[in-house]
């Protein structure tokens, strides 16, 4: 069981590779994170100094910035401040070793989009990055996990290569669950995510859609687990 938790699913791999700039001065951590993210199919540039990150950001186009707060030279807050001062809306995920109120508030006030307290689990980091990129509008064209693949442009789902017929609402629910793969999501979140299709729906309706989706994607090696009293989690089947 512990093995399963440690396993990093290599999928879903978006067709359009996600470019991440990682700024972390701890060599071991930077190396680890970059290898983990590469495992998730992302392209990772690493730098250990805030000053260098600031220079890189002026010249290079990246999809997301993962930034440690405590850096030599200019710190993470300052990097974000300068970035925003230049008018960039690049999604920024702060890594912090402290979880004091001040750090968090300051980080978000400065203009970071999310933060993660060290140490974290690799899937959590990958999921946060994906969520940030998705929010910023850059949607991967294809989401794939085990035998399931979603073509987000054509809004078509395939299980082991065969097209599965889904209603618009079912599609929206499944797409959201795939985007949030390996993450627990609440029914409310699902409802919010499938707007405008979800308008006027009750939480019970979400249950109905999920149960239909389960039947339709059976055999793809994917389970949608029920988290009792809260919501769902889509993950690779452990069998």
């Amino acid at each position, binding site marked *: 069981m512990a093995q399963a938790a440690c396993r990093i699913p290599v999928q879903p791999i978006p067709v359009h590779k996600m470019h991440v700039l990682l700024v972390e001065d701890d060599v071991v951590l930077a*190396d680890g994170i970059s290898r983990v993210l590469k495992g998730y199919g992302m392209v990772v540039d690493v730098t250990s100094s805030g000053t260098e990150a600031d220079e890189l950001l002026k010249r290079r186009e990246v999809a997301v910035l993962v930034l440690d707060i405590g850096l030599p030279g200019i710190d993470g807050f300052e990097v974000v401040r300068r970035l925003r001062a230049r008018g960039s809306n690049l999604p920024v995920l702060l890594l912090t070793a402290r979880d*004091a109120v001040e750090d968090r508030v300051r980080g978000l006030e400065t203009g970071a989009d999310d933060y993660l307290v060290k140490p974290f689990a690799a899937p959590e980091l990958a999921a946060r990055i994906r969520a940030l990129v998705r929010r910023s509008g850059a949607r991967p064209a294809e989401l794939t996990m085990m035998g399931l693949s979603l073509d987000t442009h054509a809004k078509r789902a395939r299980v082991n290569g065969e097209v599965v017929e889904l209603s618009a609402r079912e599609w929206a629910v499944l797409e959201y669950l795939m985007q949030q793969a390996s993450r*627990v999501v609440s029914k409310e979140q699902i409802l919010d995510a499938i707007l405008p299709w979800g308008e006027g729906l009750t939480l019970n309706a979400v249950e109905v859609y999920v149960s239909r989706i389960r039947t339709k994607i059976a055999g793809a090696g994917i389970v949608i687990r029920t988290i009792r009293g809260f919501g769902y989690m889509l993950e690779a089947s452990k069998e």
Partner: protein
Amino acid sequence: MTASIRSDLLKWLIAPLVVINFIGALLIYMLAWGPAQDALDDNLAEAAYDLQAHLRLNGERVELDLSDQAERILRINRTDEVFYVVRDAAGNTIAGDIDFPMFAPYTASQMAVPFMSNVRQFHVRAVALRTEVGAHQLWIGVAETLTKRRQIQSRILFALVGLETLLLVASLAIIWFAVSEGLFPLQRVRNLLDERNAGDLSAVEEKDMPSELRPLLGAINGLLGRVHKFGRERQAFLADIAHQLRTPLAGFKTQLEVLSARHDRDPDVARSAALMMASADRMIRQTNQLLSLARAEPSQFEQRRMERVELDKLMTESIQHFVQEADKKAIDIGFELQPASVMGDRFLLRDMIDNLVDNAIRYSGPSAEITVACHCDADGDVVRLIVEDTGPGIPPADREKVFDRFFRLSDKEQGSGLGLAIVRDIAKDHQASISLESGADGKGTRVTVEFASARPMSAGTKLHDASMHERA
């Protein structure tokens, strides 16, 4: 004996007051008795002058020409016995009482001179008068017993004792009241300090305190400030260590994840990686608990960090972690989250929830069921946070002890024994109560933390004001 300002003040006020009162009483007695004695002595002198008028020269002898009736009038008095004598220069008694004492030394002048003496068994007051009849030097003495004088003296004394007692009692009452009133600010400071929460190290309000107390309060506040500063420094130091540890731990854990992902087909490597991962997670947990402990310690808790926290929302932040941890032990974890707000420190509350759930996961054993719930009661006064498991449960005898630091129920599970101690500290910070009982059907464990509900903003502010007022 312990020194007491009150008894010192009372001692130094009451003792001199009693002495002064006593001296005053003595003076008043003398002032009152002197004129009375003079008046009585004058009466005696009158009698002596009367006798003088009755002396006759009969040939060569002097006689006292006093009728029986006149003598009776002289001798009979309402209260006292009266004695008299007339003597010649040689001391021979011419008339009156032969046993009248000798009084020559008092009769230098022709004025009546009063003095004390004895006649027979009686103490008497007497006057002596020198006179001349023809060529004869004569002495007249008149004396009376002291009954009337004693009566007057005791009347004066009686009045004085009454008066002085009254004055003394009144003075003592005033002194007692004044001393108590004077010491009241000390009592107030004591109450202010007594009423504080265990961790309240803020300065004592000096504004309404008397000027004499301010230097002392200043010193107390200075000390409180230093203790507070020291505590904060220690807290900062611990937080710093935790910070220093977190980055290498993160690196370690991430590298392990890479390693185990790459070699998950090799059972030997996978096994080692899984064991190392468990160790890493334990170190991470200990580090986080160290930080929680530093933060939650009641003496370090800062009221100003209190804010309105929605417990249900807060829990959803940790759900991912809970589900992952529960998965590792094949535990079914479920939630019953209803809107519930409390006033508190969101980081500490999160630590509390994390520790409660981690504890349940850790000690429940495989295939157990854990339910995490929060709700507000029907009146909206009480918020309950409940973590229930179907694990082996805690024997009633150990239920108090599990909240002690470093207490561990069994050596089988690896834990610091800090989890529930942290929960208890955080509950204390939030004036919440914890109860621990068996779960449904007597199996497992149910931990309930009961908070006062955070009312809508305006009511909350009023409540806060009220408590400030009580404290003042």
